[in-house]
């Protein structure tokens, strides 16, 4: 039973250099994500990953198609959806002069609940930083704190937008563990990433997006078997990075 059902989702924007012309940033995306899955959305910059997530989160108006999360229509009831999802955005800056504990109790207030900030900080191994300001955290700590903020309403679905971009390998692996733990506790997780290792390690299923469309979908193994060109000498297939480049080309995207 899918917890997220997206069909034919579309988003149009005016072209940056010609405002009268429009282009599809997201063009007919359909997805079914099961409860308890870790689902990865991969794609080059500008493929429409973040826009897709933002439409599911209610941050961006849906121009076409429908999205249902946990039985609630995002089109009709975006405020209701916000109650059951947790969101970690790419930008993870917070108010100055407020410490982590205070920020978490602020987020709890926004959901009208009494979540315990210290318990949340423990969950992401930041309990010692309760009195620290977000600006004094390292990159990995900041990301973990963002996830803690996204957990205040005990969401059924957690959206993570490029959670490990810019992290060192240790911090990256630490974050993967955190995501796995949350998933083991029953949370559905949808994440975007550029990191093929991350997608292969972490995700149960993957969708690869390019130019606003989903061009491939499946488990990492399925995708590798189907798309990765066989390396000429080694008997093994290539890795997911090969899949990614084979599908989306080598041309540099900005």
């Amino acid at each position: 039973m899918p917890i997220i059902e997206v069909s034919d989702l579309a988003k149009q924007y005016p072209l940056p250099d010609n405002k009268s012309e429009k282009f599809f940033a997201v063009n007919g995306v359909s997805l079914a994500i099961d409860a308890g899955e870790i689902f990865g959305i991969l794609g080059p910059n500008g493929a429409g990953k973040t826009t897709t997530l933002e439409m599911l989160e209610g941050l961006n108006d849906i121009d076409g198609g429908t999205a249902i999360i946990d039985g609630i229509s995002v089109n009709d009831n975006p405020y209701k959806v916000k109650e059951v999802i947790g969101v970690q955005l790419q930008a993870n800056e917070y108010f100055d002069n407020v410490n982590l504990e205070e920020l978490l109790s602020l987020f709890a207030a926004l959901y009208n609940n009494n979540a315990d900030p210290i318990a949340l900080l423990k969950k992401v191994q930041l309990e010692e930083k309760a009195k620290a300001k977000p600006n004094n955290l390292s990159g990995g700590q900041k990301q973990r704190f963002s996830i803690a903020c996204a957990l205040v309403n005990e969401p059924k679905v957690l959206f993570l937008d490029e959670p490990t971009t810019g992290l060192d390998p240790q911090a990256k692996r630490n974050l993967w563990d955190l995501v796995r733990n949350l998933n083991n506790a029953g949370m559905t997780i949808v994440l975007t990433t550029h990191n093929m290792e991350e997608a292969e390690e972490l995700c149960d299923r993957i969708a690869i997006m390019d130019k606003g469309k989903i061009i491939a979908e499946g488990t990492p193994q399925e995708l590798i078997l189907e798309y990765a060109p066989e390396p000429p000498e080694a008997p093994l297939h290539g890795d997911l990075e090969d899949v990614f480049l084979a599908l989306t080309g080598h041309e540099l995207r900005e």
Partner: protein
Amino acid sequence: MLTALQRHLTSVFLKIFWRDRRSIFFSLFFPVIFMTVFSFANSGEQDPISVGIVNNSSSAVATDFSEMLIANPLFDVTLGDEPALREALIAGDQTMVLVLPQDFDTNLGNTTSEINVVVDAAQVSQLGLIMPLLEQTLLAIEREFRDIEPMFSIAIEDVQARSQRYIDFLLPGLMAFTLMQLSIAGSGFNIVEYRRKGILKRLFVTPIEPRDFITAIVLARMAIVLVQLSVLILFAVLLLDIRIVGNFFAYYLVVILGTIVFLCQGFCLGSLAKTQEAIGALGNIVIMPQIFLSGIFYPIESMPEWIQPVAHLLPLSFVSTGMREIANAGATLLEIYPSLIGIAVWFVISFVAATRLFLWKEVAN
């Protein structure tokens, strides 16, 4: 009246604003300096005007003229030769140089002798003040020579009533100006900063409503602005001996109303501007004309006739006029009803505009 969420959010914003000590300090710094300077500048006598005299005439009349000017406490006279005094004038050491012609006394009474006044264009503004004094001195000399009794004399009587110094006039205006600036910057710059950092976007994915956010920022910022203004008023009353004649609570009520109006205007500007530079420019467009047109430094009545109707309608004019009538003339709230109506109208305009312009989706993205 406030929901639990609004109260919590307000308290968080209070912490955020209150802990930003540096900006609180600097926002007080300028008005304090300003008030101090103005209160000293008006503490009594004017500095004597430096005048150089080049006496090319050896006549007794010329000497008399110089001596009368030297005796006048309004002037600080230096005698010397023309090139030296001209140099001093250019250097700014002299306000003007009077050149008495060689024929200063010949034919006196028959033809008019001309005194050459050399001034620096930069000092021209002082001319209006000096010329009447010079003419007076010349008239006195003329009377002496022609032996005429003056028909009039002026005796000045100081009634020692509630003396109104310029600083007393200035303070309410300065307070109004400060509250405008703190409020517009307080809400406007915050919005732009929170957008730039992605904080608005992050808040938008929670179930918070725009009115909760606006209410919390307005209340918290208002509390901080009131603390800042109270510090300034205490400073003015205790250290500069400035008097607030009217009711203190009435005075504060106008302050609070004005703060709400300008906070809403700050919201509008913050919603329109996308960058810190843009909010700075937009803020200046709103703030600058009001500094000069709203009767802050001088009464609106002293401005050109045609601009007065516009000037009277500016939000800052209503606030500063209301505050000034209470502080200087002891007016009651009933007596300043035109100001209160003006503030109310501006509040409705600003609030409606703020809620229309502050759309999460557009402001957050």
